[in-house]
C-alpha cells in the first residue's frame, strides 16, 4: 500500500492510497482534477502530466524517449515532468507528492 498525494492546479491537496495500476489510473479513480487520462495510458494524450516532487524523482525514475518526446511539447513542462500513466504504483512510492501540471 502506498500513500500518494496529488496537488491540483488550484492548490487542493488530495492524499489517496493505491496498490497497483498506474498513477494515472489511481488519479482517475479518485477524480483528481487535471488528470483526464484520455488515451487510457498509452502515452498518446499527455492529459496525465505531473511534476514529481524532486525528493522522489529517483524512485519514479526518468521518462523514456517516447514519453520525453510527448512531454517536450506539452504545456508547463519542467525538469521533473512525467506522464503519470507511465509510472506504476508500488510500495516504494509511499509518501510520493505530485503536482498536477495542467
Amino acid at each position, binding site marked *: 500500500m502506498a500513500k500518494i498525494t496529488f496537488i491540483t492546479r488550484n492548490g487542493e491537496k488530495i492524499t489517496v492510497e493505491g496498490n497497483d495500476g498506474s498513477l494515472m489510473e489511481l488519479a482517475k479513480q479518485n477524480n483528481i482534477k487535471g488528470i483526464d487520462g484520455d*488515451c*487510457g495510458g*498509452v*502515452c498518446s494524450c499527455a492529459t496525465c502530466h505531473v511534476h514529481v516532487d524532486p525528493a522522489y524523482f529517483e524512485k519514479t525514475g526518468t521518462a523514456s524517449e*517516447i514519453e520525453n*518526446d510527448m512531454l517536450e511539447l506539452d504545456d508547463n513542462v519542467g525538469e521533473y515532468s512525467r506522464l503519470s500513466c507511465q509510472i506504476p504504483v508500488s510500495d516504494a512510492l509511499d509518501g510520493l507528492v505530485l503536482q498536477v501540471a495542467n
Partner: protein
Amino acid sequence: MKKSDLPDPFEHARLEKGHGHFNDQDDAVTMLLRLKDVRKTAKDWETFQSGAAPGRIVVPSEVSIRDTRQIPFEVDPPMHTDYRALVEAWFKRPDEEEYREKLAKIINELVDEMLTRDSVEVVEEFSLKLQSRALTLLLNIPYDESEIWISWGTHVFRSEDSPVDGKKAAILYDYIDEQIDRAIENPGDDLYSVLLASEIEGRKMTKEEVKGVMILTFAGGRDTVINAVTNSIAYLADHPASLARLHNEPEITTRAVEELIRYFSPLTHMGRVATKDTEVCEHAVKANTRVSLCWASANRDAATFNNPNEIDLDRKMNPHVGFGFGIHKCLGATHARQILRILLGILAERVGSIDILDYEENIEDWEEFQRKVGYNNIKVKFNAKN
C-alpha cells in the same frame, strides 16, 4: 495481404524526404509525413494557423463552397481557447455511465438486427446507423432525429464526381439553419440550445457561430466514425483470434481501440497556413502557403512505432496522432473512443465470427499517394456466438 489491411502509401516519401506534394485547386499543399514534424507543427499554432479563410485548412480546400467558419476548428488562440472552454465539458459527457449505457443499448439493438441477416452492407446498414444514432446522444436530441441523417446516406457531404460539391453541403447547411431556428423558438437541453445560451467575450454566441460549431460536429464526426467502425469490423472478420482475445481479456479493449485508431487513422491529414516564411524538415515554407499534418503517415513512422504496419493489440507505448495533436486535438474523441470500446465489447461478447462476402475499397487520391481509408461498401455475415 489481408482484405482488412490498410497499406501505408507514404513510407518511401517519409523516409526519403519527409514530405509530399499535393496540387489542390491552385493552392498547393506540402504534406508533412514524419511524426515529429507533424507534432511540432501542430503545436506551433502561431506559425501554422487554422484561422485562415474558412475552408482553406481543409484538403481538398472548401474555400469556394463555404463562408461559414467552423468553430473551434478554424479559429486560433485566444478565441480558440474561449470556444474550447465553452464546449469541453459537454464533449466529455460520453465518459458518464448513463451515456455509455445508452450507447450500449443502441449498439446491442443494431447487433440484434445484424445477427438475423444473411448479408449486411456494413457502411450503410451498420456504421452509418450507429454513427447517426450515437450522435443523438452527443447532441442530446431525440433518437428519431437520426432517421433523417441516415436517409441522407454516406455521401451527403461528398459527391460521386467531386469531393467538394457545394450542392451536397447545402442539405446539411439548410438543415442546421432550421434546427437553430427551432432551438431559438423552443429552447431545450440540446447542444443547439446550450450554445445559443452561451456567452463568449461577454456577449451571446451568434447564430453564425452556433452554426459553425454544429456543422463541425456533423461533418467532423461522420466519415471518421463510419470508417473507424467499418474498418474495425473488417479487421475482426480477418482476425478471429483478436475477437476471441477481446472476449477473454476485456481489459485490453482500451489499448486495442488506440491501436485501431493509430492503424486506421480515419482522418488522413489536415492543413495549416503559414503566417511567415519558415522551414519544416529542411523544406522552405513560404508565408501564406499551406502545409498539412499527415496523421496517417505519422502513425506509421518506424522511428517511433515498432512494426508500424502491424495491428498489435498489446502495443503499450502508442503515441499516435490519430485524433490530432496540440490545441486542436479532436473534441469528439471521448465520444468516438466510447463508441469503439463499447462496440468491441459487444461484438466480442455476442459475435463468434464475421465473414467478408464482398467489398469495394475507398481509395483517396492525393496524386503522389493513393491511400485506402476504408470501404465504399463491404458485405459481411455476422455469425452469432454459440
